[in-house]
């Protein structure tokens, strides 16, 4: 009898849940490690910091995306696609971001198929709908970091930065605000998700200021003030978007 039960459980696809659980745990551990390394010295914490975690995040993203194809329950599939997307953008790597984009597109389609009168996956769908903005931010942030690290940018970098800066507000704030009303209108969603999304909205705003600063210094087009003017619709709608909340550090 026990054999039959085990067999039935396996046939029914418990491997999906096992993989999901394991991948989610790995993702959490990796994030913890990254955060602890960012705030502590290796010696003090006995951590193995310094290694590039990006490939590990990419691996999680790719495996989650692959397992998602085997999930019978659409909500489990959405959960795996959410994991693939988050691990993908956390990696910051090109192939990780590609997985994140694909997972976000697939996940958004799956979320749209959940009946409105059914139990879905509100957090995971919210993150998947926001994922394009997050991925755009991570891509743009990589360029910005590169720019901030150099005092003599070459033409290629100037062009890359100008391109990244020009589309940043539309790809982040513009993209995310388009889906926020739907997300905010979902009574099933836990408040912690909205709080998280609000924090990322401020990050988009502050990053725009950083882009504007560099654009001003490098005399790029669009220039500093043009980029800042792109924020107008969002600062009017969200008073918390104020430079005082970004914190001057340099």
């Amino acid at each position, binding site marked *: *009898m026990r054999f*039959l*039960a085990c067999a*039935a*459980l396996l*046939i*029914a696809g*418990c491997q*999906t*849940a096992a993989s*999901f*659980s394991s991948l*989610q745990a790995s993702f959490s551990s990796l*994030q*913890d490690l990254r*955060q602890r390394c960012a705030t502590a010295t290796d010696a003090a914490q006995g951590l193995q910091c310094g290694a590039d975690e990006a490939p590990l995040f990419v691996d999680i993203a790719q495996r989650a995306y692959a397992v998602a194809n085997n999930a019978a329950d659409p*909500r*489990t599939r959405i*959960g795996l696609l959410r994991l693939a997307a*988050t691990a993908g*953008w956390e990696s910051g790597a090109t192939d990780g971001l590609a997985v994140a984009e694909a997972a976000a597109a697939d996940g958004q389609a799956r979320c749209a198929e959940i009946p409105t*009168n*059914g*139990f879905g*996956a*509100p*957090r*995971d769908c919210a*993150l998947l709908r926001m994922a394009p903005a997050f991925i755009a*931010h*991570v891509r743009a942030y990589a360029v*910005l970091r590169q720019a*901030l690290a150099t005092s003599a940018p070459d033409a290629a970098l100037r062009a890359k930065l100008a391109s990244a800066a020009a589309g940043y507000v539309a790809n982040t704030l513009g993209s995310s605000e388009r889906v926020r009303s739907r997300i905010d209108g979902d*009574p*099933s969603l*836990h*408040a*912690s998700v909205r709080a*998280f999304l*609000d*924090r*990322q909205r401020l*990050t988009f705003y502050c990053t725009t*200021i*950083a882009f*504007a*600063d560099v654009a001003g210094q490098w005399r790029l087009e669009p220039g500093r*003030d043009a980029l*800042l003017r792109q924020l107008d619709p969002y*600062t*009017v709608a969200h*008073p*918390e978007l104020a*430079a*005082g*909340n*970004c*914190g*001057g550090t*340099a």
Partner: protein
Amino acid sequence: MAALTPELFAFAVRSIVRLGGAARAAWEQGVRDQPIKLADLPQPPISDDAALWAFFYDASQRQRVAPGGDLAHFWDDGKPVDAEARDHLRREALRLWAEAPGAQTGWLQGRLREEGSSLGVLKQWAAERQPPGPLDRLALGFADVVFEFAAAHPVALGAGSGGERLVSALAANLRSLLPDVDDPADWQRQSARYAFAERSLTVVLRAGLAVAAEQPGLFIRSEQYQSVLGELLQPLLRVFDEHPQQRPSLAELRDVLLGPMARAVLATAAAHPAAFAGRRFGADTALGAVTAAVLDAATTGELHETFTADGLLRIYRAALDVAAQRPGLFVDETGARADVVRSVLSAVAATLASAPPPFGGGLAADVAVAALAALKGNVPGLMRLGADWGKVVPALIEDVLQGLAEGLQADPADLSFEHLFTNDDAVALVSTLLRELARTPGLLGEAARGEVRSLVAAVGMAVTAKGSQLLRSSDWIELAQAAATEAARNPLRLAGVAQRGVGEQLLTRTLVTVLNAADQGFAGGRSAATLLFGDTLRESLALSIQAAAGNAARANQYVGTLATLVAVLNGLALRHGERIGAREWLFLYRRHVAAVLDTGLTSGLTDEALLAELTG
């Protein structure tokens, strides 16, 4: 161990797959709905000057740094012109920040609070909107399988043949009540109801199996079980749906009463199998009406306080017994009649609230049961009243109890009733009166209420009369029956005569006169004349009632002469103790009571004449 039949094997495989599916679904749900940690997106550092410019270049301040603005001269290409300008701009920014709308500082505090509480943890569901948890899913999946198993193979539960049908019926009911865990509207709206219903069915299942085990010969078809048990549960669920504020007490009621009620239904089924086969005892019929009334009483404030759970259960059994034998009392072709049981309970509760001891709340259930028993024996007479019969019975209860109270309270200091009657005796007295009165067509209805009340009051007053202690409670009960019978046969002769108080009614005067006279016989202590007590006194009182009822007009005039007759016969016994015993005394009383009441004459009743009658 039973052999594994092909059907059982197939069922086992299906169940395992389903349970496997439920387990997998529960596990998956647990994994995908678990809180996740997610880091904030990376944010680049921003220089103070860049932040300061962005602050003043905001749409709300922009005109101040534009050419001609009051702050324009502090800036040069997005940077303060010098350190002094930077300091000035910082002070101005801080001033503006301090005066900023609450949303800014409030938002900051809120952000800090959110970060502090969530710790970067994102949850899937708002608490009030979340689906049933993994354990709920598994439990429901398990229940689903168990009950399908019970429906398919009830013998495996060891319940025996009667249990098979019962369990099949219950399983069918339960499966229709299980929630669709994937339908938020259904689950969120009714999850509490389902939990309640599932528990209710479990209680009924346990009770039913106990009955099936006790009565292996019980035979009810599965569909009849299903209908009857549904009728038992539906009123409970209806109250649950309609009165959310009563749910805590309903849960208690379910745990205390539902099992015994189910047992009562099945016991009734065993006692009256033909009734269960009848359509009118099934769904929407007598059983439903009776069940709804008792559940209503158990959850309604006033009745809930009057009737204990045990009392309600006894009432339920009695009502079921009546309903099984006489479903037509509760339903007709168009459905349930007026809520008779509810009316009976209300009448009992209302009347007992002001009834004398021992009729307090403690006897409420007994009185209600007695009333229901009275119904059962008198259906033809009640049916004659048509739809009004439902009003008549509560009125009868009220008249009997209030009449008794009126008679007993004629002398409030008198405790004879309490001394003479135990609780059981008191209930038996009321039960007897109800039964006798209910089977007398003429005493049912609005017009007879005064007569009924004064008849009972007369009995009550007699109980407090001097000499009443010479009778036992059982004698009083027989006497009450005799009085009711004679009153029924002779309308408005013994009691109920207008313009007369209870003490002036012929029945009262007859009883009190004889009782007082009997008491006189004991004034000198025990002697050959102390014959009039117990059976002898009861019979002499019954004879007196009969004689008075047969000749009421003259009896009203000469009823006092009965005391003389008693005194004459007692004197005879005293003087001729060797010749006059109880039997002889009663013989002579029977011979002369009617004549004495007719003429009022006792002058011819000499010792010689009376003794001659004994030998003649």
